[in-house]
């Protein structure tokens, strides 16, 4: 059963129980109560995904802090709650009390819009991921024919927020951060698109649901190991975490594109970064490792385990690796990743022609 119909039936039960007289008016041939429930249902789904994503972000930030402290031989947050687990809640209240400064030279509208552009695509991407089944309830909010294209489009938007925020601050550090962000985007975006293209070739469909179903026997990481490497590096670059954290290179530019952001606006950007890390790990687990499809049984458990592994790998990459230079990154993108991804495209299209598309 779809998540939509699940929530819709609950709402229908509530409405019938309350005996609201909404069933007497008709709008385009349907009762007005049905229309209202329809939109309330959609809003509930979005808020549900938002809440789950924020929960994952909170857990991720806690794990990140503890893990980083452990590797650097520190203790990390340990005062508030058991093992410091309430530290992040306290940090949210701290951020709420901070003064929110917009510099007087800044382009005010663009400066205010940029955090939304960074944050919204995370939730938009989470909406189209099939998280598998819980008995008969299918945990997938949005399913149509072109979900993979929508996912890629949503993921490509969020670096534009970095560029807009950096340029609108009218600050020298932020300008350099924005320029580096733009250069980094053009370095990895084409190879990433081409590896997504070879996924579409193997599955023969633009829908993520079909891609998951095509991996029933062999996950796509086996025929497409080159594409996986390219996509994984592109995902690291897209989150702008080390070794590819050029947009906010902390030790060179003060904080890169987010230098002028303070208070809750900075908090939104921070949540967007960690939310994107969660989204990237889920996307890699879904597209290349079969998502909820796994050995022995198909369940939400598999996608949770797979994406947790990738989250740990991303955190490890953040903690352990140094930063590359801009020209090194662009060399890697244009001279290595692009030919590798095109080679992968040829391999997968030959597989599709000679062995049939879906495995």
């Amino acid at each position, binding site marked *: 059963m*779809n998540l939509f119909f699940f929530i819709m039936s609950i709402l229908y039960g509530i409405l019938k129980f309350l005996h609201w007289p909404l069933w007497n008016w008709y709008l385009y041939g349907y009762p007005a109560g049905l229309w209202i429930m*329809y*939109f309330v249902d*959609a*809003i509930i*789904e*979005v808020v549900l*995904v938002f809440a789950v994503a924020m929960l994952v972000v909170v857990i991720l930030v806690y794990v990140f802090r503890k893990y980083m402290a452990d590797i650097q031989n520190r203790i990390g947050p340990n005062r508030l709650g058991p093992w410091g687990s309430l530290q992040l809640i306290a940090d949210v209240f701290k*951020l*709420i*009390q*901070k*003064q*929110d*400064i*917009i*510099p007087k030279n800044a382009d005010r509208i663009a400066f205010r819009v940029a*955090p*939304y552009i960074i944050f*919204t695509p995370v*939730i*938009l991407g989470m*909406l189209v991921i099939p998280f598998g089944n819980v008995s008969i309830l299918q945990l997938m*909010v*949005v*399913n*149509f024919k072109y979900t993979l294209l929508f996912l890629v489009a949503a993921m490509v938007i969020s670096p534009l927020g970095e560029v807009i925020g950096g340029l609108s*601050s*009218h*600050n*020298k*550090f932020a*300008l350099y951060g924005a320029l580096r962000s*733009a*250069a980094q985007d*053009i*370095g990895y*975006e*084409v190879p990433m*698109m*081409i590896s997504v*293209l*070879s996924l*579409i*070739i193997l599955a*023969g*469909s633009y829908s993520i649901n079909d891609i998951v179903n095509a991996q029933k026997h062999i996950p796509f990481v086996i025929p497409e190991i080159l594409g996986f490497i390219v996509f994984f590096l592109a995902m690291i670059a897209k989150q702008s975490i080390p070794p590819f954290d050029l947009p906010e290179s902390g030790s060179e530019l003060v904080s890169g594109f987010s*230098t*002028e952001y303070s*208070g*809750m606006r900075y908090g*939104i950007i921070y949540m967007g970064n960690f939310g994107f890390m969660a989204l990237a790990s889920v996307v890699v687990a879904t597209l290349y490792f079969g998502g909820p499809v796994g050995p022995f049984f198909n369940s939400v458990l598999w996608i949770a385990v797979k994406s947790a592994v990738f989250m740990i790998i991303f955190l490890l990459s953040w903690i352990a690796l140094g930063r590359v230079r801009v020209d090194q990154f*662009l*060399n890697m993108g*244009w*001279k290595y990743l*692009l030919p590798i991804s*095109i080679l992968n495209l040829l391999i997968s299209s030959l597989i599709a*022609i000679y062995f049939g*598309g879906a495995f």
Partner: protein
Amino acid sequence: MYLTPDMTALALAVLVVPILVSSLIAVAHYFSPKTYGKYTYDNYECGEVVRGDFQAPLPLQYYFFMMAFVVFDVDMLLLLPWASDVRGLGLGVFLDVLGFIGVMLVGLFYVSKKGYMRWLND
């Protein structure tokens, strides 16, 4: 366009998520202090008073990367319709696609040999 449940959720997400985020920012704005000093709303330059303009002329090399990106992005977009039915379209179309990508790659190779795909101009 039909108002399917999926599309409704997708369209409302674009509205609902910014509303949630902006309510968070509004709460923070209500509780935050509004102090004002002489340099509070200046740009941040490591504690110094701001000097000069933030804008700087960019080297031309930067735009060569942008041009190459636009070319390859359009290339990728044109391959998308072919990708969903590779087996049905067969080997002939595949060879055409090879030629299509090959032209792009030869162009990229030429440009990089000419020295345009270099970040530093030395």
